């Protein structure tokens, strides 16, 4: 129990004579935050249990659960369940989940970092220390990013590891298992030896109809022998039968036609692709954090900024990235999510849907659906958002009544 004498006791912190030298040397008015400020701000965020659970669940927990289920399923019944990893799983997890929800969780962390001092009454204590308000604001950036980026990195590393080490040994291309990474002659040679499968399954876009081969279930690969069909070159009568050599030649033609698409499919994401995508996801999370920090600092609260950023990411970005609105196209290009899609590495399938040749739908066609924007313009938009929201948040922090 505390007694009166406890409180009135001689001070462990006696009043000292004016310590002008010390005060002058601690750079209290400097805009640069000290290491201690960053470290304690990091601690403050890290100790928020609910926030950390959400962060870990989205960036680590859900991918781990998803991959674990696939690993167990494949181990139990390899014929029914494909390998847990591989390029297709990589693109699905990274682009369909980590990219979008990584942004949202980073935004929540940013909104928390930007508003809790104010809402929980610590802002006043901090301002009374005499420390530069700008330094108080800037200390939140490395502290918050250290948490967000670390979580993204851990989750992403797990995803990459599983996708590499549990990747399929065969590439499933257009429904057929093909060895990955074949050269054009090697693919031609393979097509010649698997002519029926190639003709029945590969995409074909040529003037002559494919030979009629039974493809199972009563289906054939082309019109029946003797039939008359219209082609761009005119009316053609399908030969009564084609020799095995002709069939093989046709399969090679089809393989040649699809080679570029085949080469854009992988069983395993390459190292360079994983590095590029990792940096891209980290940038997306950084944007989410910085924008959340600035917006919540501006508004002085957390809930509304979080809602606004979720709406931006889940509603506005998918719409504005694909639908050109006349007179507003430059505004659409100015949305950071649209700009981020334009600098997506490796011609991957784009988030928010879109089809294409890569890994089960994406890349090329996804890109074609995006509103046009140069890489330079997209980069400027991203830098602009980072600078603008940092400046806005810092300005509000410096001018706000505490």
């Amino acid at each position, binding site marked *: 129990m*505390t007694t*009166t004498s*406890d*409180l*009135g*006791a*001689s*001070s*462990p*912190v*006696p*009043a*000292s*004579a*004016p*310590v*002008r030298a*010390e*005060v*002058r040397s*601690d750079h*209290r*008015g400097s805009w640069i935050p*000290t290491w*201690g*400020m960053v*470290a*304690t*701000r990091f*601690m*403050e965020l890290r*100790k*928020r*249990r609910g926030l950390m659970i959400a962060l870990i669940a989205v960036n680590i927990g859900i991918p781990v659960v998803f991959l674990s289920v696939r690993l167990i399923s494949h181990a139990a019944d390899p014929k029914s369940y494909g390998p847990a990893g591989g390029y297709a799983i990589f693109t699905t997890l990274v682009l369909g989940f980590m990219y979008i929800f990584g942004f949202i969780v980073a935004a929540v962390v940013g909104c928390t970092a930007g508003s*809790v001092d104010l809402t*929980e*009454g*610590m802002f*006043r*204590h*901090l*301002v*009374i*220390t*005499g*420390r*530069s308000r700008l330094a*108080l604001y800037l200390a939140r950036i490395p502290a918050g990013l250290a948490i967000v980026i670390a979580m993204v990195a851990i989750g992403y590393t797990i995803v990459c590891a599983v996708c590499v080490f549990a990747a399929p040994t065969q590439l499933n291309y257009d429904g057929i298992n093909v060895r990955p990474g074949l050269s054009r002659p090697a693919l031609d040679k393979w097509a010649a030896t698997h002519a029926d499968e190639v003709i029945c399954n590969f995409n074909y876009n040529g003037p002559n109809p494919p030979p009629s081969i039974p493809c199972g279930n009563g289906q054939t690969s082309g019109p029946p022998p003797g039939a008359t069909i219209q082609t761009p070159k005119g009316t053609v009568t399908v030969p009564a039968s084609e020799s095995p050599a002709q069939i093989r030649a046709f399969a090679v033609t089809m393989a040649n036609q699809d080679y570029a698409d085949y080469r854009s499919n992988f069983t395993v994401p390459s190292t360079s692709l994983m590095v590029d995508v990792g940096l891209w996801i980290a940038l997306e999370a950084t944007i989410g954090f910085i924008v959340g920090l600035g917006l919540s600092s501006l508004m002085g609260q957390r809930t509304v900024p979080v809602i606004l950023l979720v709406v931006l990411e889940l509603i506005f970005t998918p719409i504005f990235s694909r639908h050109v609105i006349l007179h507003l196209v430059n505004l659409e290009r100015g949305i950071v999510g649209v700009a981020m899609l334009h600098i997506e590495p490796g011609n991957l399938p784009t988030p928010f849907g879109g089809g294409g040749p890569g890994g089960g739908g994406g890349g090329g066609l996804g890109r074609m659906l995006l509103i046009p924007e140069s890489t330079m313009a997209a980069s400027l938009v991203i830098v602009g958002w980072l600078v603008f929201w940092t400046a806005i948040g810092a300005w509000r922090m410096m001018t706000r*009544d*505490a």
Partner: protein
Amino acid sequence: MSLTTSAEPEGQRDSESPWAVETHGLTKRFGENIAVNDVELLVPRGSAFGYLGPNGAGKTTLIRVLLGLTHADAGTMQLLGHAIPRHRDRALARVGAIVDEPRFHSHLTGRQNLQILAAAREPAAKGRVEPVLERVGILHRANDKVSKYSMGMRQRLGVAACLLGDPQLLILDEPMNGLDPAGMLDMRDMIKALVSEGRTVMLSSHLLDEIERTCDAVAIVDRGTVIRQGPISQLLAGSSFEVQVECSDPDRATRLIGGTALGEHVQVVPDGLAVSLPEGTGRDAIAEINRVLVEGGISVYRLQHIQASLEQWFLSVTSRLGSAK
């Protein structure tokens, strides 16, 4: 009037000014409402200074302006000789303050909250976390989350936060709020101990009794304006006082005194008479009352000089101002 700061050479005046707080013409408006109105305030160093006023008088607003939490619209101010806001960082380095109810990150422990604040101060502040926790008597609860603290413990933590900077000036806004009698006693003793160490404590409160018990000097504020300031003893010395008379025949005594110049403020009370004497009346008036009664054949059993309390004085001053307006 515009907000100006006095010219001040770099690094000077920290110990030169005799005033811990000095304001001239300080004004803060919220739209049409003037919360701080042309305040001239001088808080001597090393004193316990009360800033006394009713709720809504502008006490907290003045403190917020002094600490740079909000800007002033006009006037000049200095803390520990440093002009605010020009040398705010240098001044606040030696200032600790509680403004309104002390609030902290409730998910962190008391120690962790202090570590955050210490990190924003000079490097030496980090080493003061444990001593200040011990001093305010919550070291044994330092590892508990603030959400589990009582109001009194939060007040103590607020004082601990103030002490982190080894302050020469502490500004405490309503520090007794929410404290039980034992807590108020502890806080009062702590304030006295801080003053005895040579620190200046500026205490804002509407609790007149606490100010009277704790402070040496006081400023009375009403509707944003400082209407009196000075040492409490001096302020009360010039105030009206009352003489209570216990005698053998109160009714006749009333008539006797009523026939003199003192007779305007005499009334019979259960124990005898009460004679109210106006401001500036000397102690000779008491002897005069005694002489009149004795010469009138009335036995006088007791004459008691009752000095007006700060509360009575405060009410008389503020009500007089209120009626004048």
